[in-house]
Structure formats: structure tokens, C-alpha cells
């Protein structure tokens, strides 16, 4: 261990060690890593070049091979081979044949040789003879198996090709025929169709390969590539020229197995690849990479001299040493400087400290710098300063002490003076005390032991009425009333004697108590005023002794006011007590620990208890509660809760007098003091036993009511079900019956049955609806709907009724109403139908023709809300104010008498009213007896979220129209329609006005819309009016309505018969359509048609030609996969559905309960299941669930429910359980058909027979005239396919036709056009009805001609009519 004598030395050595050692370590490791990495990089670089060279050499050779393969497979080569071989063999190389062949192919080979850069090309025969050579050197025409060049590379590759059919490359060798040039050869067998023809050989230059080898790019100055092959195990031969030995090719031999020399070469030759630092053949250190080249069996060594590669390493090392030296120098220098800076300062510090220790207080250390040493020096100086300062302070303290002494002496002198002054003050204080006593509020009296008043303050006057002078020296007893006054002396004596009642004032002044009265305790006593009045006083007496004598002082206060207040308080408490005691409730008071301290009388009386029984006892132990431990526990629990600050309240049974019980509403309230502590609990209770009884009764009543309501619901459901089940039988069978052949009046009867049944159903539905409304169970949907289509449908439903009742029903729909709104279409229609139905009912059968108009008008409009007003107006019987008032109540009709006249449940209006209210609208009526009524329904609708695109209203833009008719009536509406569609429309009320207007019309096309009503349209009159205006082109649209009166002959038969909704152009300029329930679109189309904007659409609504529905047998249906399974328990309904299905052309099996149906279903024969919902054993839901369960994964067969349960939710339930559709009983044939076709679609064999109503036979079907004069199918549709019935009809027709035809002929001859038209019309109808369509058509033409008064046309048609009639006659004969 070195001993350092100074800090400087120590510093220098440590500093150098600590800074230099890391530098040395880091430098060394960096340098080392750097060298290793450089080595690796160098090896990698050389390796990459080696790889590249090997690749270049190999790819050069492979390209040559590939080139050669091209020529090897060329047809020319094969031909040349064969020809040259033959010529060579037969005639030798000198022969003409050979030369010719040679000349022929030389050019071919020359091009190839030159293109690909070969030295020479040879063809060698299978015997090894070289039969062709491009260069014609010495080797030509020698044998390569036996000849002198057999041991050359060419010989070897040729033999390989011949022997093994393999192509190969020979090594580079000096080849003597080519003047010793270094060359390599390739040989390829030529095989044609599996036969060896010879060998193609090529001689390649060595230069290209050598170029690669000698290319030193990237290898620096000393780089070299050594390509060698093994001569033998110990020697390698250098193939290519070396950088250091340019003539080494095939000359230089390198000895192997001679480590460390040439290890790289040896490794390469042994197939290894790698790189590293090695020693080369010259014994130099190199960076080498070695590779093996399989194709040539060569080893390739690429190398650079290590000296060159690592030359810069030397520089790096030198530079490193230099840096290290410099760093070392700098470090030592730094150490010295640093140590000097620190050590010198320390030395100075040490010297200064020594000086100070020697007593030189003024010595200071020089402060240098701001660092720690500077701070140390500064601190040192501060310390010295402090020492100096403390010496000075001690001197000052001594001076202070002396000063203090002096001060004390002065203060004693001052105190003496002060005392004297204090005495004087004392005297004045006494004076002050006296004055206080004099002026006190209370009266102070001092007496001596003789009871003589010694002093008294002036208050005595106020209190007793005596002056001071009057009482001083008197006996105190003068102030006392009797009996105290006379007894006073005795009391005093006794006090002195016994020492008891030391306060003699006590018995002097007030209470005659025998006990001890302590001095100082206040008492309330009575005193006597000078005027003899008794005064209430508060007295406090104190006893004192002065000079051995006994004195008493009494302080007396007037307490008369307080006494009065106390009196008042007592009174109020008594009142309260009375109230509490007489309260019907129980009230008490408890201490916080549950002890009862107070209880009112009611509680005691009810409990049959006395106060002492309960006061002071725990509440739960009192007789009210102690009858049952649970109650006691409850009470204790309550007290605990109340103490927690809660107000406890609940019902509780208590025991009452006589052993009974009473339910009380028990309450426990905590009472807090000002400091929020609970100081007491107030228990209370009210008798609620009566209330409880009533409550129980109420509950009972409610459950009874609920049961009743339940019963009502069940009854309603049952009613619905029970009535609908037989109704199914009635309607279903009526449907079926209608399809059988019935005579006319039978038909009517069936119709009547059907209608009655439906009427009955309606009533049931009404009642159901109504009960639903009453129960609040009717829900209004909010779905997009079209108001116009609702109104149109409602009218369509009523149209037939209107026709029957002879009431004209008109319809107006404000075009401004949007196409789609959010609302409940079903309920809206119900309301409208109800109202319109009433209107029709009540306006029919009167002298005035009935007229009902239904109008929907847009009343208000906001962006998201539309208010539509529906007006249903009639000209019926109307009603009085009184009737209107109770119109919308249930079961009420306007007048009970009307019920008898018009029928109905009287529920319709009530339901409508409710529905409108549910939809958030209002309904109002305006009526006058005998004038008709107007019902107005106002409803608001929200716009749907996405309003539909603009409606496809017929565009009538730019058309001028003149509407003739009452502007207040239909005509006005028409004008609105027209204007909305873009036309300009004017209104004139009548023909006269129209004539006037015609005179002033602007020229051009004018459309005349004529509201003809049931009159003939005044067309001729109008046409006449137009005669002076040839510039106007009038077209007419005629609206006819009110054709229903039986005695008025309608003018346009077409319309009456067909009740067409579609317009029809009767003549060139006239379009006619029916005004009853006229749809807006139909009207607008008619106008467009008249204006020539629209072509009359030929309605190709071919009459459906139903096939005769021969119901298939069960087997047929089964084989077709169309068998239906029906599950139905009611026998009647079984029959009904079987009939219905048969009629529709289906075969069915019927099971009478679900279980049986399921069993049958499992047979897998059925295509569809129709099931009742309510059946014994297994209901429809269970059945469906079982089937769907079994079906999983298989195809899903349709299941359709039919049920009489018309309650809401049934359909949803059906779908939820897995059913596909839902039919409500009674099942109508048409519905059944539609449903079956939907779920069991199929071919024509199931067409429904004759379901089309007779009225719906389209007149347009006329256009499809049959070949046959009579199409029986038309009749079949009307009356069924019973041949007997049909022949009966046809017979009737023939007879009547003959009669009419006679009339027609006669009329024609007589020129009675009107009669002829009428006859033609009559025959037309019946002809069309029986299917004699051609005849009907002819009649129609004749009718027109007759009406037009065109005798010529009529006569022209007559012969055709005769022949057609004869044909029909003949055909009917043939049928019969």
C-alpha cells in the first residue's frame, strides 16, 4: 500500500486511475470488435464475389448447353446427321455426295456457331467417326473411339453421349488440333424416335470463362481468383490464368495436403464452401472464399491479401494509441490543476484557523470561488464573526443588570404613594354601595334581632305604601297580614330557642311550615300593603352578625304579575288535560327507556285499567300488549326504532276491557329537546277496527268484481266462438249451396240466408268491438295508409247496398290529401262505413230520391300533420236537437221508433264515436228533421317518415274544361279534380248558362263535362249551340248517375249493366262514365280520353274460364301430393269444410281431434294442414308445435288455422306458434280459395267453379267472341254446370229471343227507331247472359243505331242479325 503524504499526490493517482482505466477498456474492446467485424465483412465481400463468379461461370456454361440443345433438337440437324452419315459412310469425305451434303448444311451450322460464339461444331456418327466439322481441323474424319484424339475431352464427352445418352461438358484442356488452344467440349446425343443417330459436339472458347476468372472488380489490388481441378489426391492444377502468374493456366500445379498452405483450394475441391483467413499457395495471409463448381468439378478460390484488406487496421490502431496518449496527458494535467485548486484553498483555510486559535480574532480566510471550498471559507469567516459578536453581547448584559437595580428602588417609592391614594378611593366606594342599595328594584329591609326595621330602601314606598320614615324603627310585623302578624313574636322566640326555622321571616312572612327554613332560600309569601291589600311577594332572607349582634336582611320582590301568569298556565293545562283525556285516540308519554309516565283516560277506559296499573311500567308489560309475546317483542322493537329517531307507525291489535281485541293505528313519536336529544316518546293509537272491516269488505268486493269481469270476458269470447261455430255451418253451407243448381227463387233464398248470416255476424262483431272499446282493449294502429283508398273501399263496400236501397252515393276526395298518411285504415273504414251505412239507411225509401255524399277534404295542413275532414251527408229523415244530443251513446238510435223501421243494434254510432276519439279526432253532427244530416269526422294524421313519390295523377295540363252542373254539387268537385290535374276548369250551372258561355269561348279544344244525373245528357242541344262556333272543338264527358230507380230508363245501358268503373268512349267525341261512387282516377282518365291524351284501353280482362272442377279422388290427390288434412271436432263444420274443399277441387282427410290428426300427419301423405284451434285431446297450437318439432330439418308444410275465436291476438298467437295463415270462422268459400291457392298453388284442375258473381261477368268479354254462336260457359258461370238447368235456361232464352226478334223486325220495318233500340237492348242483355256473345254484340250495335235514329245502319245490320240468331237457335238445338 502506497502511503500518500499529501492530498495532491493522492488526488493525482486516483484521478488518473479512475479516468484512464475505463478509457483503456473501452478502446480495447471497440478496437477488437471493429477488427472482428471488419474481418467478417471482408470475408462476406469475398464470399459474395466468389458466389458471383461461380454463378457466372456456371450460367455461361449452362447457356451454352441450352443453346446447343436448340440445335440438337432442330430438324435440320437431324437431317444433316442422317445425310452426312450416309454420305460419309458410303462415299467418304472427298466424295461429291458428301461435299454436297456438307455445302447444304454448312450455312445452317455456321449461323448458329457464329451467333452463339462457339469455336467449332462437330457431328459424330454412332461409330464415333467425326463426320462433320465446321472448322475442318485435324480432328475431322477421325474416329473418336479409336482414333488419335480419343483421349481428348472431345473423345470423352462423345463417348458419354453415345454410351449413356447423356450430354456433358469436358474440362478445359489444350487441344492440339486447334493449335494447342485451351478448349472445352460439349456433346449431345441425337435421338430420333428412340433411335440414336449420332452425336452433336461443340467446342467452346476458354476466354469467356477466363474473363470471369481474371476479372478483379471488387477485389482490390491483390485480389485473385484461383480455379483448380484435382490432378490427383495431392495435387491441384490451376485452370485459368492467375493475377500473380498470368501463364499459370494448365501449367501451375499446387500441392495439396500441405497445411497451412492452400487449405482454401483443397476445401473447394472437396465440395465445401466457405470463407475465412487462410494462407494461400504462395504462403501469404489472405482473406479467402472457396466454392465448388459441380459442372466442371472445379474448386474456385477467391482471395485478397490480408495486408491489403486490413491495411487500414494499422492506421486505426495508431490513431487509437495517439488518442489514448492525448487523453492520458489531459487527464493528468486536469488532476494536477484540480488538486492544486482544492488543496491550496484548504491550506489557506488551515493557516487561518491556526491564527484564530492563537487568538487573532481579526484574522479572515480569503474566500475564492462559489464552490464548496468557497462556501467553507465563507462559513469559517461567519463563525469568526459570531465569536466576536458574542463577546460584545456579554458586556452589554452587565450594564443592563445595573440599570434594573436602580429601577426597582424607584418603583417601591411609587407604590407607597399609590396606597395612600387607594384609601381615599375606598371611602368613595362605600358611598357608591349605599347608593346602589338605595336604587335597587327590589325592596331591601334590614331588621335586628328584635324584629325592628333598621333600614329600608325607598322601594318600600312602591311596594307597601309606607315611607321609609314610617317603617324604620317599627316592628316588621306591621308588613304582615293576619294571622302572621300576631304570631310573629312567638316565631322569633322559638327560633332563638330552638335554632329551628332560622329564618324567622319564613313564619313571619308566609308559610307556617314546621320544618327547617334555611337562610338564603327564596320563598313566596304574602305581605300587607298600607291600605290593607294583600300582596304576593318573593322573599329571600339572609342572616348576618355585626359586632356580635344578629341582623337579618330580606329582599322582597313584587310577584303579583307572575302569579297571574301562573294561574293562566294552570288553567290552560287543565284544558289540555281535559282534551287529551277526552280524546278518542290513545295518547301517553314515555321516558326514553320505555317507562310509561302518562296516559290519557280513553286508553285506560278502553283497556279497563287504572292509572296505577300502567304508569311507571314498561309499555310492553301493560295489559294492552302483554297478552301475546309477539306483540311485546314488536313494541320493544318499535321503541328501539323510535329511539333511533324514527316515527314508528303501524296497525296493532290491543287487548281491551272484557277480553276483546281492538285494531289500532299505533304510532310512536320521539320528542327531542333543544339539544336534539330524545327526551321522551309519545305513544298514541287510534281505533281503526271499523276501517279494517270496511277495507276487507272492499277487497272482497273488488275480487268479486274482477271475477265478474273475467266471466264477462270469457262469456264474450265464448259467445264469439259459440255463435261463430254454427255460423260457419250456415255461411259455409250457403256458399256451397249457391254453387249447386238452384232455381231462381231458391237462389234468392240462399242469398237471403247468406246475407242474414253476415248481418248477424256484423252484429256480433259490433258487440265485440264495443265491449273491447269499453274494456279499453281496442288499439289503434299507426301504419302508412292511403286515405283515398280507404274512402274508396268504404264506398265500394256500400255501393251494392246503395243500389239496392235506391240511394245515390257520390264520392269526393280532395286531391290535396297526400297519398300516404299514418293511421289505422281498418278502423277509419269502419267509421266511414258505419256513418255511410246509416246515411244510406236513413235516406232510403222516401219520396225524395235518397242521396248520400261522402267527401274527404283536407282541412288543415302542417309539415308533419294533416287534418282531414270526412263529411257524410244525406238527405234522409234527419233528427231533432234532442236526438242529436244522445246520439253517440250506446244502444241508442235517433228514435226508438226508427229502430223498428230501420233495424240495427244502435251500436254503430257509439262505436264510431269511440273509434274517432281513440284516433284523436272528433265527430260532429248537424241535422234537421226531414232535411237530412251531415256527420263530420275530423281526424289528424301524421305524415309517414318517408312520403311516397308524387302520385301518378293523370296529367291534364293545358286542357280547357267547362263543367256543366250545379257548382255546389258534383260539378264543383269535378272542377276541383280537373284543376288539380292541371286543367283549367270553369263551371256553369245549367244548359242555358252553358249556351251563353259557348258564345264567348276561346277557340280550340274544349272539354265539356256534363253532370247529367239520371237525365239524358243534353248533348244534342249543346252540339246545336256549337254550330255557330266552328272554331271550337268540343269533346264531351258525360257523368250519369242515379240510374237505380226502376222506372227511369237509363240512357247508357253499358254503364248501368256493368257498373263500370272504366270510362268508355261511346261516340267519337263523347265519353261516358258512371257518376256513382266515381273514383277520381277514373274520371280523370275519362277526361284524358276525351281530350285524346289517352287511348281507350282495351281491357283484355278475359273472363276466367274455369275448368269444371271435378274434385279429385283421395288417391289422385295423394299421388299428386295435394291431399289436405283437416283437424276439426265439430261435426257440422267437418261437413262444411269437406263440401267447401270438394267444391274447390281438393280432397281431404278429416280428423276429429289433434291427436288423431298428428297420427295421420306422421304418415307424411299430406301437403297441407287445416286445423281448428280449439279441439279436445290436443288443440291446434299443440298440434302445430308437435308437427313443427318433428319437421325440424325437413321441408315445412303449410299449416292454416281456422277458428271462431275472433278475439284480437289470436292471429299473432297462431303465427308465433308456427302456423302460416289464419282463417276466421265462418270460413267463406272465396277466402278459403284464396288461402289454399296461396299455400297450395297448382295447375288448372283446382280452378274454382262458378265463384264469380253473375254481375261481375265483364261486358268486355264480348271482344273475345267465340267461334261457337253460344258459349255455354258464360251461362255455367251464372247458374252452375247442371246440364238440366242450363238447357232450361237456353230453352227460355230461345223462346224470348224469338219474340223479341219479331218485335225488332217489325220495328225496323216500321222505321220505329226507338222501339227497335229498346228491343235490341232487351235481347242484347239476355243474349250476353246465355253466352250468345256475337248475337249480343250485334244487338248492341243495333241498339246504338236505333238510339241514334240511324235507320239505314239498322237495316244494314238486320240481315246479319237474322243469320246469327238462326245460328244460335241451331246451336241450342244441338245442345238439347
Amino acid at each position: 500500500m502506497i502511503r500518500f503524504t499529501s492530498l495532491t499526490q493522492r488526488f493525482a493517482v486516483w484521478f488518473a486511475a479512475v479516468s484512464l482505466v475505463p478509457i483503456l477498456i473501452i478502446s480495447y474492446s471497440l478496437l477488437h470488435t471493429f477488427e472482428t467485424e471488419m474481418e467478417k465483412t471482408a470475408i462476406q465481400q469475398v464470399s459474395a464475389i466468389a458466389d458471383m463468379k461461380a454463378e457466372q461461370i456456371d450460367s455461361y456454361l449452362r447457356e451454352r448447353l441450352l443453346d446447343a440443345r436448340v440445335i440438337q433438337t432442330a430438324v435440320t440437324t437431324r437431317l444433316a446427321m442422317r445425310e452426312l452419315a450416309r454420305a460419309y459412310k458410303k462415299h467418304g469425305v472427298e466424295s461429291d455426295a458428301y461435299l454436297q451434303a456438307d455445302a447444304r448444311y454448312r450455312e445452317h451450322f455456321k449461323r448458329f456457331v457464329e451467333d452463339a460464339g462457339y469455336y467449332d461444331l462437330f457431328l459424330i456418327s454412332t461409330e464415333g467417326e467425326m463426320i462433320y466439322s465446321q472448322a475442318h481441323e485435324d480432328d475431322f474424319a477421325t474416329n473418336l473411339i479409336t482414333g488419335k484424339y480419343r483421349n481428348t475431352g472431345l473423345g470423352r464427352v462423345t463417348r458419354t453421349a453415345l454410351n449413356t445418352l447423356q450430354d456433358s461438358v469436358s474440362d478445359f484442356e489444350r487441344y492440339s488440333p486447334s493449335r494447342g488452344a485451351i478448349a472445352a467440349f460439349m456433346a449431345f446425343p441425337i435421338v430420333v424416335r428412340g433411335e440414336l443417330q449420332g452425336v452433336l459436339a461443340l467446342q467452346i472458347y476458354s476466354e469467356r470463362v477466363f474473363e470471369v476468372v481474371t476479372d478483379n472488380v471488387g477485389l482490390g489490388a491483390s485480389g485473385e481468383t484461383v480455379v483448380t481441378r484435382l490432378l490427383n489426391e495431392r495435387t491441384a492444377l490451376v485452370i485459368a490464368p492467375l493475377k500473380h502468374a498470368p501463364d499459370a493456366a494448365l501449367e501451375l500445379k499446387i500441392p495439396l495436403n500441405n497445411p497451412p498452405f492452400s487449405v482454401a483450394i483443397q476445401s473447394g475441391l472437396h465440395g465445401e464452401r466457405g470463407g475465412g483467413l487462410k494462407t494461400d499457395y504462395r504462403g501469404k495471409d489472405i482473406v479467402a472464399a472457396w466454392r465448388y463448381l459441380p459442372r466442371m468439378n472445379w474448386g474456385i478460390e477467391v482471395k485478397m491479401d490480408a495486408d491489403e484488406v486490413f491495411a487500414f487496421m494499422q492506421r486505426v490502431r495508431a490513431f487509437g494509441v495517439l488518442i489514448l496518449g492525448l487523453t492520458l496527458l489531459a487527464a493528468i494535467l486536469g488532476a494536477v490543476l484540480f488538486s492544486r485548486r482544492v488543496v491550496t484553498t484548504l491550506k489557506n483555510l488551515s493557516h487561518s484557523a491556526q491564527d484564530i486559535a492563537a487568538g487573532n480574532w481579526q484574522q479572515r480566510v480569503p474566500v475564492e470561488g462559489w464552490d464548496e471550498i468557497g462556501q467553507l471559507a465563507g462559513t469559517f469567516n461567519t463563525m469568526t464573526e459570531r465569536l466576536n459578536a458574542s463577546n460584545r453581547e456579554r458586556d452589554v448584559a452587565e450594564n443592563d443588570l445595573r440599570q434594573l437595580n436602580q429601577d426597582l428602588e424607584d418603583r417601591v417609592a411609587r407604590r407607597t404613594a399609590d396606597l395612600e391614594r387607594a384609601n381615599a378611593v375606598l371611602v368613595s366606594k362605600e358611598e357608591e354601595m349605599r347608593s346602589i342599595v338605595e336604587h335597587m328594584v327590589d325592596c331591601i329591609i334590614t331588621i335586628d334581632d328584635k324584629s325592628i326595621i333598621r333600614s329600608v330602601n325607598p322601594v318600600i314606598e312602591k311596594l307597601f305604601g309606607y315611607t321609609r320614615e314610617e317603617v324604620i324603627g317599627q316592628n316588621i310585623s306591621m308588613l304582615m297580614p293576619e294571622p302572621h302578624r300576631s304570631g310573629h313574636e312567638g316565631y322569633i322566640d322559638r327560633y332563638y330557642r330552638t335554632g329551628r326555622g332560622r329564618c324567622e321571616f319564613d313564619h313571619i312572612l308566609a308559610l307556617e311550615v314546621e320544618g327547617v327554613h334555611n337562610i338564603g332560600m327564596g320563598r313566596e309569601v304574602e305581605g300587607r300593603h298600607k291600605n290593607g291589600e294583600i300582596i304576593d311577594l318573593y322573599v329571600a332572607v339572609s342572616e348576618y352578625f355585626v359586632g356580635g349582634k344578629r341582623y337579618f336582611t330580606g329582599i322582597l320582590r313584587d310577584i303579583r304579575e307572575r302569579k297571574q301568569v301562573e294561574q293562566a298556565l294552570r288553567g290552560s293545562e287543565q284544558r289540555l288535560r281535559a282534551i287529551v283525556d277526552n280524546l278518542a285516540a290513545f295518547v301517553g308519554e314515555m321516558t326514553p327507556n320505555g317507562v310509561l309516565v302518562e296516559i290519557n283516560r280513553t286508553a285506560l277506559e278502553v283497556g279497563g285499567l287504572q292509572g296505577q296499573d300502567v304508569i311507571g311500567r314498561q309499555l310492553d308489560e301493560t295489559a294492552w300488549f302483554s297478552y301475546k309475546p309477539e306483540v311485546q317483542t314488536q313494541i320493544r322493537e318499535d321503541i328501539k326504532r323510535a329511539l333511533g329517531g324514527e316515527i314508528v307507525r303501524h296497525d296493532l291489535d290491543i287487548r281491551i276491557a272484557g277480553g276483546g281485541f281492538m285494531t289500532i293505528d299505533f304510532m310512536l313519536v320521539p320528542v327531542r329537546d333543544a339539544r336534539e336529544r330524545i327526551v321522551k316518546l309519545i305513544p298514541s293509537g287510534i281505533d281503526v277496527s271499523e276501517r279494517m272491516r270496511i277495507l276487507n269488505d272492499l277487497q272482497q268486493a273488488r275480487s268479486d268484481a274482477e271475477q265478474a269481469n273475467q266471466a264477462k270476458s270469457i262469456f264474450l269470447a265464448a259467445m264469439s266462438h259459440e255463435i261463430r261455430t254454427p255460423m260457419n255451418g250456415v255461411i259455409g253451407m250457403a256458399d256451397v249451396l249457391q254453387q249447386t243448381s238452384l232455381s231462381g227463387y231458391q237462389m234468392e233464398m240462399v242469398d237471403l240466408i247468406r246475407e242474414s248470416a253476415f248481418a248477424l255476424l256484423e252484429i256480433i262483431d259490433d258487440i265485440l268491438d264495443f265491449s273491447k272499446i269499453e274494456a279499453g282493449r281496442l288499439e289503434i294502429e299507426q301504419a302508412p295508409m292511403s286515405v283515398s283508398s280507404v274512402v274508396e273501399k268504404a264506398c265500394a263496400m256500400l255501393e251494392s247496398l246503395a243500389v239496392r236501397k235506391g240511394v245515390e252515393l257520390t264520392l269526393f276526395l280532395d286531391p290535396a290529401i297526400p297519398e300516404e298518411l299514418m293511421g289505422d285504415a281498418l278502423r277509419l273504414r269502419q267509421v266511414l262505413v258505419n256513418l255511410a251505412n246509416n246515411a244510406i239507411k236513413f235516406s232510403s225509401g222516401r219520396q225524395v230520391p235518397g242521396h248520400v255524399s261522402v267527401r274527404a277534404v283536407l282541412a288543415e295542413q302542417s309539415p308533419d300533420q294533416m287534418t282531414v275532414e270526412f263529411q257524410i251527408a244525406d238527405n234522409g229523415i234527419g233528427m231533432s236537437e234532442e236526438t242529436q244530443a244522445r246520439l253517440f251513446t250506446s244502444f241508442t238510435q235517433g228514435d226508438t221508433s226508427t229502430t223498428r223501421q230501420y233495424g240495427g243494434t244502435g251500436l254503430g254510432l257509439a262505436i264510431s264515436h269511440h273509434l274517432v276519439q281513440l284516433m284523436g279526432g272528433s265527430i260532429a253532427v248537424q241535422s234537421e228533421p226531414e232535411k237530412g244530416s251531415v256527420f263530420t269526422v275530423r281526424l289528424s294524421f301524421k305524415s309517414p317518415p318517408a312520403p311516397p313519390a308524387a302520385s301518378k295523377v293523370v296529367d291534364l295540363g293545358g286542357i280547357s274544361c267547362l263543367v256543366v252542373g250545379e257548382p255546389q254539387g258534383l260539378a264543383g268537385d269535378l272542377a276541383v279534380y280537373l284543376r288539380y290535374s292541371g286543367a283549367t276548369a270553369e263551371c256553369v250551372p245549367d244548359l242555358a248558362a252553358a249556351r251563353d258561355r259557348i258564345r264567348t269561348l276561346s277557340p280550340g279544344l274544349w272539354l265539356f263535362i256534363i253532370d247529367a244525373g239520371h237525365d239524358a245528357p243534353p248533348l244534342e242541344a249543346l252540339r246545336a249551340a256549337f254550330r255557330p262556333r266552328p272554331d271550337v272543338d268540343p269533346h264531351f264527358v258525360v257523368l250519369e248517375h242515379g240510374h237505380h230507380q226502376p222506372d227511369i230508363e237509363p240512357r247508357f245501358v253499358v254503364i248501368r249493366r256493368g257498373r263500370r268503373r272504366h270510362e268508355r268512349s261511346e261516340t267519337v267525341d263523347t265519353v261516358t262514365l258512371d257518376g256513382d261512387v266515381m273514383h277520381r282516377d277514373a274520371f280523370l282518365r275519362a277526361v284524358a280520353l276525351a281530350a285524346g291524351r289517352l287511348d281507350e284501353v282495351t281491357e283484355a280482362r278475359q273472363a276466367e274460364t274455369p275448368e269444371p272442377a271435378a274434385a279429385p279422388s283421395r288417391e289422385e290427390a295423394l299421388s299428386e301430393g295435394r291431399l289436405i288434412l283437416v283437424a276439426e271436432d265439430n261435426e257440422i263444420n267437418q261437413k262444411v269444410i269437406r263440401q267447401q274443399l270438394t267444391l274447390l277441387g281438393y280432397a281431404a282427410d278429416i280428423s276429429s281431434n289433434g291427436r288423431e290428426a298428428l297420427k295421420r300427419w306422421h304418415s307424411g301423405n299430406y301437403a297441407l294442414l287445416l286445423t281448428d284451434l280449439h279441439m279436445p285431446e290436443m288443440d291446434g297450437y299443440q298440434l302445430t308445435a308437435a308437427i313443427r318439432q318433428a319437421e325440424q330439418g325437413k321441408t315445412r308444410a303449410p299449416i292454416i288455422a281456422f277458428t271462431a275465436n275472433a278475439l284480437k291476438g289470436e292471429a299473432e298467437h297462431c303465427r308465433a306458434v308456427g302456423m302460416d295463415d289464419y282463417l276466421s270462422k265462418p270460413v267463406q268459400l272465396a277466402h278459403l280459395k284464396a288461402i289454399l291457392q296461396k299455400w297450395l298453388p297448382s295447375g288448372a284442375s283446382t280452378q274454382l267453379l262458378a265463384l264469380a258473381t253473375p254481375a261481375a261477368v265483364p261486358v268486355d268479354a264480348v271482344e273475345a267472341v267465340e267461334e261457337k254462336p253460344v258459349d255455354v260457359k258464360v251461362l255455367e258461370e251464372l247458374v252452375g254446370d247442371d246440364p238440366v238447368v242450363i238447357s232450361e235456361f237456353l230453352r227460355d232464352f230461345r223462346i224470348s229471343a224469338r219474340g223479341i226478334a219479331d218485335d225488332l223486325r217489325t220495328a225496323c220495318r216500321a222505321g220505329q227507331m226507338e222501339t227497335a233500340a229498346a228491343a235490341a237492348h232487351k235481347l242484347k242483355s239476355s243474349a250476353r247472359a246465355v253466352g250468345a256473345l256475337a248475337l249480343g254484340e250485334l244487338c248492341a250495335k243495333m241498339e246504338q243505331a236505333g238510339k241514334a235514329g240511324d235507320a239505314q245502319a239498322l237495316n244494314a245490320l238486320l240481315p246479319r242479325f237474322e243469320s246469327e240468331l238462326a245460328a244460335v237457335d241451331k246451336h241450342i238445338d244441338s245442345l238439347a
Partner: protein
Amino acid sequence: MLTRHKFSVSLVLLTFLLIAFLIWQYHSGTKPSIRVGVLHSLSGPMASSEKPMVDAIQLAIEEANVAGGIKGQKIEAIVVDCGSDAAYCAEQAERLITQEYVHALFGCWTSVCRGAVRPVVEKHDHLLFYALRYEGMEQSPNIIYGGAVPNQLVMPAVHWALENLGKPAESEKRKMRVYLAGSDYIFSRVLNMLIKDLLAAQGASVAGERYLHMGSAMDELAADIARKQPDIVLNTIGGTDNAAFFRALRKSGIAGKIPVLSFGVTEVALTPEDAAAMAGHYAARNYFQTIRSSENQAFVERFRERFGQNAVIDSPAEASYVNMRMWIQAALEAGSADLGKVQRTILRQSLSAPEGIVSLDPVTRHVWKIARIGKAREDGQFDVVWESAQPLEPAPFPTYRSSEEWVRLLGTLPGVEP
């Protein structure tokens, strides 16, 4: 004060040591091993043939691991028993690639098996090392073919046989008559197609040609050969059937008279009795256990040390070993076993193998190999009687016909899908 100073010094020292230890631990810690898949049958009829291949692969891996693995990572072989079922083998290949994340696959014996695995490795762009000599006519960018194709073995061997075996006396002046005996599978068919090309070129004739179903009786074949009296029999019968063939030959009494050159016989497949029956006949292979080179001697030594002194190495086993060596060498050169990197380096590899120098041909992905012919000894080993001077270039489609022509010809072979 002093103790406290000492304490803090030792604390600093301890911390330093701890950190140093942790760093050392981190660097020397066991890294996850690199996994390679081995697909060979360890059960079923192929098991006995393929077992040595697995052993050879294991040996190569162990040697590499002793030498430090690949960048410090050990190599681990996941050996799957293919149960001699090609389809199952393909499934396992899929599993090894997609679930075991192996970096390369080694395996298959039959062409059927290789054919089944090939689509799998091609689908995943993976790497399969195949070690068997086979009929050629195939090339896949995802297979390294470590075995010989006919031009490397059959063609020179047939030439050698024609030159050196059973030559008719000079006086007879007739063509050599060669009998072709094979199994009824693609190897024999394709080989004989090539052999017949060569015989035609060499002016020899086919005395007879028979293909037998695997496991069928050999007596009839032997009788046929005896009847035809060819000069040489070229035997391409596969695997274990050779034993029956040679027994039948011996029984028919022609064993000693007509030399047989076999292409399907290996040391492993022969039991001692069979070996005796085959003695004196010839087999063509790239490797015989008796090769004298020091590399081979050392290899045999190592193999026996590891798997017992009776362990027998045949050419597929040696090729498996070389395949694994190639892959390791490529991975070392790439510095990682990553499939993509190895794919780049593998094609340049060459090494000094027990059989001599082998190097990969980057174009065909086959290996340059030395051809050898051995003469069977009584002990089941072979004396090498001929070997090619240098490794022969692999030509899966021999160049004297275009590969289209080969494909067309293959289509004409019975039982071969074109």
C-alpha cells in the same frame, strides 16, 4: 462511518455483479429450438426401410447441435410416423406446417407419398427434402430432391453392365440380350423405358420384360428368365420383393450363370439369408456403406456409435443425412432457419458427404451425385466395383427428349397418370 462506507462499496459491487450476471444470463439463456418435421413411416410395411433415415437425420441434427446449433438455437426434429400411408403423411405435413411451425420437412419414401405431400408444401410454399432415388420426371420449387434420378445412376450403370457383364463370346457376334424384371409400379416402368432407349442405342436387345405385383410369387419370373436365357438381368424390383426374387433365382439354378444388376436393393432391405442369395450379383447406387473415403469411414463410425455396432446404413439413410446437413449449412449461411432465407441459400450448397461431393443443382433442385456399382458380398455388404469419375449432373427429364415428350411418353405407361 467507516463500516457504513464499506457497506455502500460492497452494495455497489454487488449491484454491479448482479447486473453483469443478468446480462450474461440473458445472452446465454436457452433460446427456443428450431423445429423441423420428419415424415417417415415408423410403422407399417415401410417402417424397417425408413427407420435408418430417421436415425440419420437425428444424427445430423445432434452433430449440428453439438457444434452450436444455428446461431445458438438448437434444432429439434418433430418425427411423425406416417404409418406407410401417403394420405395420412400429407395430412401430417399440413399439420407440421400449420400447427408445429416447422422450418423444413424431411421425408417420404415412395413416389406416391411424395406426390401426396407435394401439393401441401407447394400450397404453403414450404420446403421438403426428399432422399430417395426415384424415377425422375418431376421438379417442384418446394422440394429438394436428394436422391438420384435415372440419368445419374441407371444410365451409366446399364452402360457399365453392357460393357462388363455376361458378354456373349466374341465369336457369337450377336446382340446382347437383356431381361428386364420389375415391379408393377412407376419406378420400374419409367426406368425400363429409359433402359430400353439405351439398349437400343447400344445395340442390345430385350430378351424379356416382366412387371410383377408387389408380393407376388417369383418362381414364374425365375422360370421365365431361365427359359429366355438372357445375358444380363436388369432388376428394378422394389424393396423387400427382391429377397423372394433372389431366392427364386437360386432355386431355379440360374443364379450363378446370369448376372443380375439391381436398382432397388439396399443394404437395409436384405436379411442375412437374402444377402447370401444375392451374393455375386450387382447393385447400382450412389452410396455403399463400404465406400473407402475417410469421410465415409468416419460417418459409419459415428452412426454406429450412436445407433449400435450392428446399425446398417443404406443410400437413402445417407442421403437423408446429407439432406439435413445441406439444410443446416444453408441455415447457417443464411444466419437463420427462416424459410424464406433458407430458400435463398439452399440452392448454392455443396458439401463433402460420405458418398463424395454432393452439390445442389439450382435449376432442377436435384443433387449432383456420384454413381456406383457394387457387387454383393455374403455379409450383405457390397464391394464397389465401379464409380463415376465425378458427380453426375441430375436431369430429371433426360435431355435427349424434350420434357413435353417425356410427359407424353409417361402418359402411355400403364398405371401412370400423365
